[in-house]
């Protein structure tokens, strides 16, 4: 295990966690409005998988997108500013929490219509192939998206044309507030659906960052060999509600407690400690550094001005 890279995984997961905790707090204070979907609990999936990507690779995701954006290395100040609708945000306040973009990092968006990002992922993969780039696309989706027609159209096309796409399903068991058992004819093991499209698939523990990283790397190797897409199902859990507007009344607290025992950050911290890769002093140091980064980013976002009213009409079309 490369020590510095391993510690970076830990630090990145902490950054996601602390960012989201503060986003939740700022939402309660009214500084963030609209819909705000927190990634708390699922950090291992974004951090583990995105750690395997090169700069050339594309990321496209759903509306629970802060974690993926942070894991990609997009400036937390820009993301927080976007959450607050400020002019220094990733889209200068026009996108909001669900629509984070940073094309310079090939981060092609948070997309807020369930399943809507999948057809576009096919286009990114198509483009990579058309231009003979050696890049791949990682497309995150939730378990809810699997029941959309766009999912099936995209799976078929990606397989048919051998597009270089890694479909990364974050199965957190609930499509908004409805359990997968109530919505899937084939039950919880969603990855098996890929069989019918002849896409190799695997189910992994999405609460284990190293397992996610390993499975992602193997998938990317397979994709880069030209065999077409791969489908990863990462079993995970969101510790908070669907959005900040959700009191989570549809699931019992025991279930939440059981999953919290598998907290990906605590679990990884224990592993690192047991292997002497990290000591309590280093942990404290990392936590303080993350806390201060988050404080800075909140201060930055709070001080960022609102967009000017003229911006309303800008970027509807070219040259506007």
């Amino acid at each position, binding site marked *: 295990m490369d020590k510095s890279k391993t510690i970076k995984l830990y630090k990145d997961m902490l950054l996601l966690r602390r960012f989201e905790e503060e986003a939740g707090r700022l939402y309660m204070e009214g500084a963030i409005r609209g819909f705000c979907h927190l990634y708390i609990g699922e950090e291992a999936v974004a951090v583990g998988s995105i750690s395997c990507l090169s700069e050339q690779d594309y990321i496209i995701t759903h509306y629970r997108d802060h974690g993926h954006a942070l894991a990609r290395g997009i400036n937390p100040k820009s993301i927080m500013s976007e959450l607050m609708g400020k002019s220094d945000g990733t889209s200068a306040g026009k996108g909001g929490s669900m629509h984070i973009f940073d094309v310079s990092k090939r981060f*092609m968006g948070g997309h807020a219509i369930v399943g809507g990002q999948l057809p576009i992922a096919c286009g*990114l993969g198509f483009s990579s192939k058309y231009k003979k780039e050696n890049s791949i696309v990682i497309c995150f989706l939730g378990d809810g998206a699997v029941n959309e027609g*766009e999912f099936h159209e995209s799976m078929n*096309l990606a397989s048919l044309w051998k597009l270089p796409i890694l479909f990364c399903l974050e199965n957190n068991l609930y499509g908004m507030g409805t359990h997968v058992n109530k919505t899937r004819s084939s039950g919880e093991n969603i990855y098996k659906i890929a069989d019918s499209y002849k896409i190799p698939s695997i189910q992994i523990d999405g609460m284990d960052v190293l397992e996610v990283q390993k499975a992602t790397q193997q998938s990317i190797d397979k994709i880069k060999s030209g065999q077409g897409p791969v489908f990863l199902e990462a079993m995970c859990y969101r510790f908070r509600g669907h959005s900040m507007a959700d009191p989570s009344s549809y699931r019992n607290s025991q279930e939440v407690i059981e999953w919290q025992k598998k907290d990906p950050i605590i679990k990884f911290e224990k592993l690192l400690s047991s292997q002497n890769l990290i000591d309590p002093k280093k942990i404290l140091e990392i936590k303080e550094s993350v806390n201060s980064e988050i404080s800075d980013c909140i201060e930055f976002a709070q001080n960022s001005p609102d967009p000017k009213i003229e911006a309303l009409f800008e970027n*509807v*079309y070219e040259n506007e």
Partner: protein
Amino acid sequence: MKMSNLTLRESIKIGLTEALESDPNVFLMGEDIGDYNGAYAVTAGLLKKFGSNRIIDTPISESVILGTGIGAAATGLKPVIEIMTINFLLLAFDQLINHAAKLRYMSNGQIEVPLVLRTVTGGGAQLGATHSQSFEGWLASVPGLKVVCPSTPKDALGLFRTSMKQKDPVVFAEHALLYGVKGEVPDEYFEIPFGKGDIKRAGDSITIISYSGMVRTCMSASEILSKKFNVECEVIDLRTLRPLDFDIIIKSVKKTGHAIVVEEAWKTGGFGANISEAIQLEAFDYLDGPILRIASEDVPAPYNRKLEFGAIPSEQKIVEAIKQKFSI
């Protein structure tokens, strides 16, 4: 100027061919455009000429066809996506409205979607309720989209060339009944800008505003009115619904003092209502009577020929409406 007499189908094919020849990033994608030669034969022979990497047959999956175009366009390619008819475009509305039209704005200009979406619009071919609709007007209400609806082979080619130069998604709606219609097309290269309507027939009695397939109907109604009743209609072809040429409409109405808007879409919520609103706002003092609207009846398109033609605006309906307006 040297001219060729071409069908609208041929003129669009010329546009497609020159786009494919001039830019390796241009590719065509859609259902049955290759081996089958295109449902309306517009792309006939292109697969043979340009190969399957650039003339790409797809499954019948409108959402992913359009989404693939969006992703490709967002990364620097220049897709021309064919959705077999505008009725099937409903299956890709999420991609068109929620994604293609919004990515530039939501990303604050980081993403551009320079794709051209060709599709076939209109009724009149006894294809029944699900295959005879005209949705250009709906689409023109969506910020982020540009909507083109040519009525002649020349306009089709000139507007297609302009469409290919856009950095925004363009819906290029070709009327099914116009494919075989011939017209003079200059051999020399020309373009037709967006947002510029065209006076297809000059007159001073009344302004008829229309677009797409209905322009022909308006033209033949105008000939009848001229010959039989000495009414000289000025027929304005909007050519693009978004951007829209308000100036040409207002200027003409100020001259004639009368306006009638003719469209093939349903009357309720039709695009013509926007035009009527603009006219009454900008030229109210010049109007010598109410603005008329003729549109399809508010019914699903029936199959039976007599019933279908009862629903769609016809030259007789236009003639009658104008006669009544002038108490002829």
